[in-house]
């Protein structure tokens, strides 16, 4: 099982995403922004960071990259794609997922251990969760406020396309507390929080009574493994 991890200039969490893939038990295939060849991977992770400095709009320049164009095409054919933070922004700028992500409401970058509710488990990346399970995943972004027009929001809610919602604290002013979305088919998932930072005890978010031991993020990667094996 091979999972591609994309590196754009300015990508930061590619090494973390690769580590998460390895811990979950899959093989990592590095994908380079300028290379449209996806090397026959079974799934792709678009990791976090500041691709091309996130100048203009987050993810806008990366959305134009050859590798992104190839991923968009493959995703339309059903390839599982997970966009994390900047990767989510790239998915939105590529119109694989609707809406937009704008500056956090409080104008600051924010890094915190964030509680989420998993609202949809029928996707390539969430099938190992239980419906409405609450998980803790690190969040770190400056432009993570999810916005969409009223009609889009209605459709997202109506069709159950909200994959994750913020619980207790809405850290960035996202509409309807939306933390992550799925596409209709369920192969494409994007979210602002960083599951790859919650895969290894000792380096994850704090859990009650044990420091940095949260590994709720691992299930994202286990889900895609399951999905691909069953496919």
């Amino acid at each position: 099982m091979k999972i591609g991890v994309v590196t754009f200039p300015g990508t930061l969490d590619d090494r973390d995403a690769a580590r998460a893939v390895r811990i979950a038990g899959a093989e990592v295939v590095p994908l380079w922004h300028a290379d449209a060849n996806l090397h026959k991977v079974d799934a792709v992770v678009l990791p976090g960071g500041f691709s091309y400095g996130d100048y203009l709009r987050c993810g806008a320049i990366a959305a134009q990259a050859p590798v992104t164009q190839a991923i968009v095409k493959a995703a339309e054919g059903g390839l599982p794609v997970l966009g994390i933070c900047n990767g989510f922004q790239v998915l939105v700028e590529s119109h694989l997922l609707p809406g937009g992500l704008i500056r956090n409401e409080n104008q600051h970058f924010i890094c915190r251990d964030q509680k989420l509710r998993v609202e949809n488990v029928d996707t390539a990346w969430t099938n190992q969760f239980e419906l409405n399970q609450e998980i803790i995943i690190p969040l770190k972004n400056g432009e993570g406020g999810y916005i969409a027009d009223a009609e889009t929001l209605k459709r997202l809610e109506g069709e159950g396309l909200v994959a994750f919602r913020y619980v207790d604290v809405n850290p960035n002013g996202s509409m309807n507390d939306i933390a992550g979305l799925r596409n209709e088919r369920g192969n494409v998932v994007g979210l602002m929080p960083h599951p790859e930072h919650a895969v290894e005890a000792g380096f994850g978010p704090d859990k009650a009574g044990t420091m940095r031991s949260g590994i709720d993020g691992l299930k994202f990667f286990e889900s895609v493994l399951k999905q691909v094996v069953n496919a």
Partner: protein
Amino acid sequence: MSDVAVNPVSNLDTVALAATTPEKHQPWKELGLKEDEYQSIREILGRRPTSSELAMYSVMWSEHCSYKSSKIYLRQFGEKVTDEMKKHLMVGMGENAGVVDIGEGWAVTFKVESHNHPSYIEPFQGAATGVGGIVRDILTMGARPIAVMDQLRFGAVENPDTARVVHGVTAGISFYGNCLGLPNIGGETVFDKVYQGNPLVNALSVGALRHEDLKLAKASNPGDLVILFGARTGADGIGGVSVLASETFDSTGPTKRPAVQVGDPFAEKVLIECCLELYHAGVVAGIQDLGGAGISCATSELASNGGAGMRVDLEKVLKRDESLTPEEILMSESQERMMGIVPKKDLKAFVALVEKWEVEYSILGEVINEDRLYINWHGEEIVNVPPRTVAHDGPVYHRPVAYPAWIDALNADTVVAAGLARSNDNATEIAAQLVEVVSSPNQADKSWITDQYDHYVGGNTALAQPDDSGMVRVSEETGLGVAIATDANGRFCQLDPYNGAKLALAEAYRNVAASGASPMAVTNCLNFGSPENPEVMWQFQQATAGLADGCLELGIPVTGGNVSFYNQTGDVAIHPTPVVGVLGVIDNVARRIPSGWQDSGNNIYLLGVTRDELDGSAWAGVIHNHLGGKPPVVDLAGEKALADLLHGASLQGLVASAHDLADGGLAQAVVESSLRFGVGARVWLGELMERDGVDLTAALFSESTGRVLVSVGREDDVKFVGLCEARNVPVLRIGVTDLAGSDAVVAIKDVADFSLDELRNSWKATLPELFG
């Protein structure tokens, strides 16, 4: 540069012209040179300098680049060392950053640097480029930067200008560090009116490398190519660092060009990855980052360090703005640039890699077998100097030193002499004091700032804010890692700079030990007022002696650092603020010790003894607005014993948490240890007061050094106490950890039961209420 600013070609000041026009007036004064310095340049060259040479000497001989006022004191960091201390040093002082062997074939390099003056003028860009600069220093050593820290001093919270600086600086650090993908693992935040017109923005970076990847900034092989790569050279920051950092604010800069630099962290991130691939491919023989003094610094230092010379065609520099004059190009401090020395045979591989990363480069010239730096501009020679005279033979000053007229009176004004009221017999009052101290801006929760920093990126952060030190894993195979803590208590240093510097060292050392690591090396950033003031120079002399003596006593060497002078507004200097960073090593970060208790029912022990030491304390400052007397006694042998004990206990897994005592004393440490994981505590102080002969106020708020608060599981009790006794570390059980949850309390016997939620609310609310 008023009258040296010449047209690119037509009006060029060449070496030939300089030889025939000895009497031409030159603006050496405006460039910050003193008359005798200008004369010695003429002596070195045997003629007047060209305007380009003058630009180079003036920036390189500035205080910021040449350390002319501090050099004679910094030497002792290299002299007061034993062979044992040097054992793990792969690169010592003098390079871009020191390098320490941490075992398993790994080495780390770390350094802290100031960006104070630029951060007052333009807080966002000033702080951002401060992070960028220190990270390039680390990269230059051949290391992958793995973390950053920031040491901040701001003016009084109630001054309206403070918010401007706080917002700008924290956003700048957040922007640049986060975009680089470097976890921020800690720092310091202090508010004090002495920093009102002179905020301090120090930034630290640490990097890791395999032994064989070590790189040095030198050009020694004739024929190797000199290549400038990274961002284009622009007009930003011309004279920025050097002029700003060398003179007080009222002096005007030499050019109309903007003195601020704008940072592009994206360009730097790409540069980091590109450089690491270049290193890995073995295609650079030497490398130097461009920081203050830009190309002037990089060319002269590379040549001087390598014992060779260099021939450079300056017009080949890629420019953002074609109107730049050669003098401006030499002085430009545009960010995100590097100069590489590349053997001709490796050029192809070099080019392939920089092109892969879409990094621009230009070949400026080559290394020559001659002790000369020649710089041409469209074929005309504009610089012809011995590189050493620019880079290393700058002036050395023995500035006058004077014992401050005011210090005896200040030392005499102790907490006792001033008759500061204590509320020993009034539980309500002393309980209110505790809350006031804990939630005062300097003691309050810093997460309003630190939540703006990514501490996850890289996936190797084992400890970060709010724990005592930052810790990162270096080897994913074995868990080998490093811990770093930095400290400086400006109030103590104002009272006694010699012991104040030792106290900063002791505190950073203790913080590293409390996290389970073994202290190994020291870096520093010495922030002081004007060196032209003999009383400031005395403070500097005292602080450097204190730090060097302290390092010798603790047996850990200074590997590098930075000096920032002229931190003063008018005649009023900041408190001497020697920021000391201690790096420790831990064989496996899984063994790290958190700073708060995680379980209920553990015993709480206080290690060390408490004296009535309230002079200069947070209590004296917050409750009585008082600063006077003498700082706490330093006992470095005691600190060492304490560190050894914690190391031993951690190896055996005996301590569940450890938190050092510093500002705010025991009260602060108990509250923080409880708040860390929301687990309450019951504490009694009667035995402590009796054993150490102190009153309740001192028991709670004294800032005696050499103390750590630990929690120990019941099953490990006997072993732990035995270990303390065997090592002669004073140990006293002062409480037990209690329940977590919404009715958790910190109960201090004879004082109050504080609801943990209420404590948290006051402690957390302070900075958000001040800064939104």
